[in-house]
């Protein structure tokens, strides 16, 4: 199971800053889309390096393939 954390800061004026942690790629985008729908509209969005990392399942499959080739 993967742990997904979201830090939400609602400023004095109602502007919302969201940090999505743990969710990668498509999963992360789904959270971003959902929260945008809840709050209003996107003012700014920045992807960090973790966003581009593959999901855990995909990484395991890749390692298994490499092992077969080594044998």
């Amino acid at each position, binding site marked *: *199971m*993967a*742990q*997904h*954390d*979201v*830090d*939400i*800061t*609602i*400023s*004095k*004026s*109602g*502007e*919302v*800053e*969201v*940090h*999505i*942690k*743990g*969710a*990668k790629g498509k*999963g*992360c*985008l789904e*959270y*971003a889309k*959902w*929260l*945008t729908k*809840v*709050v*209003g*509209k*996107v*003012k*700014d*969005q*920045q*992807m*960090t390096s*973790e*966003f581009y990392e593959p999901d855990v399942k995909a990484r395991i499959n890749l390692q298994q393939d490499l092992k077969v080739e080594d044998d």
Partner: protein
Amino acid sequence: MSTVLILAPVIIANWPAIMVAVAGAASALGFTVTKTAQEQKQQVEVEQGVQSVEVEVADSEVLAQSLATDQQIVLTKGSIKICVKRDERGRCSVCATGKGHSKVELKQIAQEFTQKLTQCFVYDRVMRELKNKNFNIVNEEVMEDESIRIHVRRWVD
């Protein structure tokens, strides 16, 4: 962190949902509901020399559940009166009035109330949706700058 998102609030709701946010803002800023809108309207017309400033809540739309367009609520705190209403265009506006207060002071008060109303509305909405998505609240605190910080978590397969 995988994504940092900055969102600007859009308030589109029916009058009861706006009322919940108004009540939250009123409570936080020390205002109380005193009179019905009609009583307030009549009194303002009688009083002379009372300054009044109206501030529109940005990106707001109060959905009409009936044909009534002049839904409003009046709050007071000392000599200051705040009227939150749905205007003719369906937008939410905050009007501050008060004898002995300048227009600059009243504008500040109206803007402060508008901000608190927006913050309360967003907080209620976000918390409701987080519960619907089965998030657990890890931590919640009000910061020195009056912002609300919420840390939530959930486990997924």
